[in-house]
């Protein structure tokens, strides 16, 4: 079961954890702005916990960025580390973004460089609806 501790709120950024059932993908819904000077210090421990949970449940993690308004390049570095950690733990990671917002299309399309044949990373453009 998810609890209030599974919600991250740091500065202008909020990440809500949602999961319909223990066998459903673990959704992490980003909103606000990720503009911290050292986002890795906040996101690293949070995602370590979520990756452990998803690994134990053998479910994918879906990172939903559709409603995120801004992220700095330090956050992109932190996301790259999440991609690497998920692969190391054999947890499938799905990155969901809104391609109608040009910055999201550019930022997240570029993460294709980390796609492999192992199917552990998927980029999923949506129309902004969940």
């Amino acid at each position, binding site marked *: 079961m998810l609890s209030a501790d599974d919600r991250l709120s740091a500065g*202008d950024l909020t990440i809500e954890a949602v999961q319909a059932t223990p066998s459903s993908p673990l959704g992490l819904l980003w909103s606000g*702005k990720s503009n911290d000077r050292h986002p890795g210090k906040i996101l690293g421990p949070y995602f370590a916990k979520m990756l452990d949970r998803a690994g134990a449940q053998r479910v994918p993690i879906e990172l939903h960025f559709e409603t995120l308004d*801004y992220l700095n390049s330090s956050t992109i570095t932190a996301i790259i580390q999440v*991609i690497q950690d998920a692969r190391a733990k054999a947890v499938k990671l799905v990155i969901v973004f809104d391609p109608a917002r*040009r*910055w999201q299309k*550019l930022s997240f399309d*570029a993460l294709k460089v980390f796609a492999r044949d192992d199917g552990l990373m998927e980029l999923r453009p949506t129309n902004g609806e969940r």
Partner: protein
Amino acid sequence: MTDFAFNIDVPVRSEWSNVDLLITSVENCFAAMFADIDGCHTIAMVTGELLENAIKYGDWTRGHRVFRLHVSGRDKEATVSVENPISPDNKAIEDLFATLRWLDGFASPDEAYRARLLEVANAPRGGGMSKLGLVRIAYEANCRLRAEKEHDAVRVTAQLIL
């Protein structure tokens, strides 16, 4: 002066919270001038990345701990420039010019950005500067970047076509 000539020139205290204040201010100014929401966000992102670099790598041990943001342009072009004090022995300045030369070595900013993402992935964690911000600016804003060093200050300028 054309109808859409604009000029923002402000001194900025080197406090991290000011980055978001100025990103929001610049984005709102452009939203008032142009209907292109994506273009407004791009200008704001460029402003944010340059401001972050100034605060991270500027020399704040002397003076008034203030640097300068300048945003100007007209119609379909804009220039975002940030000037901050530097210490003479700051390695970040060498890295700045090296990054700009590195960018010039690629056929496109897109190619450079993807290469830099892979470098970031392969770098030791917590190893210091990723220098991703400048490459991101070139890629997402598809703009030209240049830097000028004058005595104890450096100015980084991004030229964008809106």
